């Protein structure tokens, strides 16, 4: 048998935002590493497409709209009752909108904070409940963004929501350490994904080129980010908690 330090056999992992992009790729990768995966998203058809790409058995989908933030802990309890206690959760679901300050409305701020940040808080609250996760262990991974670390035009609400998530990661890591739960985040830069395709639709070719030039080793892929998430879920990161793994091809280094 081949030694694999990122082996996730016997682990049950919840992945939100698994309909596409990073969430889908993370689900695929951790299934290949042996995990049993419960995936969620809003679109059942797309979730079914993700399920069809997973390796191994025991995977299931549970369509859920994370806008229903207050119900998340109950929903997680229901999922644990059906699929068994969780060993990890990855919060990928998120919303990115480019809205300059002069046209930024409270509704848009609230929506981005709710989907990107508040849902993460309640996911953590649900995950740590007794009976919902394996006693004495657990790994939570949040999908942050380099937007939470460096500024840019037109994304104040999005950046604030991602910065909030990174702050949440640090404090939760301390609060949940006694329960054996590690909490970390990844902060990717731009990756070739459906979200980037949508962003590009609102940019000129020159703007796209300028953005790509800021990445010394190029923009990433969803596989790159999934690798980082899997590392944080697995025992390879057993001594790591409260940290943010920046994955940006050198964007923030330059």
């Amino acid at each position, binding site marked *: 048998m081949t030694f694999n330090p990122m082996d996730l056999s016997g682990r049950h992992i919840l992945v939100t935002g698994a309909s596409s992009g990073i969430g889908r790729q993370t689900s695929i990768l951790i299934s290949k590493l042996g995990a049993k995966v419960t995936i969620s998203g809003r679109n059942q058809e797309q979730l079914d497409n993700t399920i069809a790409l997973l390796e191994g058995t025991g995977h299931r989908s549970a369509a859920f709209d994370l806008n229903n933030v207050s119900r998340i802990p109950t929903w997680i309890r229901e999922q644990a009752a059906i699929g068994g206690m969780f060993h990890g959760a990855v919060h990928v679901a998120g919303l990115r*909108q480019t809205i300059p300050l*002069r046209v930024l409305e409270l509704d848009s701020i609230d929506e981005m904070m709710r989907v990107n940040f508040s849902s993460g808080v309640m996911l953590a609250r649900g995950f740590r409940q007794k009976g919902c996760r394996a006693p004495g262990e657990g790994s939570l991974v949040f999908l942050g963004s380099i937007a939470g670390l460096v500024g840019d035009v037109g994304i104040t609400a999005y950046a604030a929501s991602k910065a909030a998530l990174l702050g949440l990661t640090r404090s939760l890591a301390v609060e949940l350490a006694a329960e054996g739960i590690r909490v970390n985040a990844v902060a990717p830069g731009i990756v070739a994904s459906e979200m980037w395709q949508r962003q590009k639709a*609102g940019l000129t070719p020159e703007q796209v080129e300028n953005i790509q030039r800021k990445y010394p080793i190029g923009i990433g892929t969803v596989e790159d980010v999934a690798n980082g998430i899997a590392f944080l879920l697995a025992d390879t990161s057993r001594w790591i908690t409260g940290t943010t793994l920046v994955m940006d091809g050198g964007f923030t280094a330059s």
Partner: protein
Amino acid sequence: MTTNQPNFLAMMDELLEQAPGTINAEDRLADLEDWDSLTLMSFMAKVNTSYGLILSPQRIAQCKTVNDLEELLNASPSQA
């Protein structure tokens, strides 16, 4: 989709921080002092939140007048 011209012009007034009734359909974008890249980005965001449309900056760049912008909206299928 079909816009309501008074509402569209009111949106342009607000976007360009002008008093209501200042912007007219025949105004040339090149003559509007505040029609810059950030305003364009704001226009796209406002159109997205108000009309559910995602406009291409290249298509917007082809517009010469305020009326052209409105026609671009009316020629765009709703994304919502």
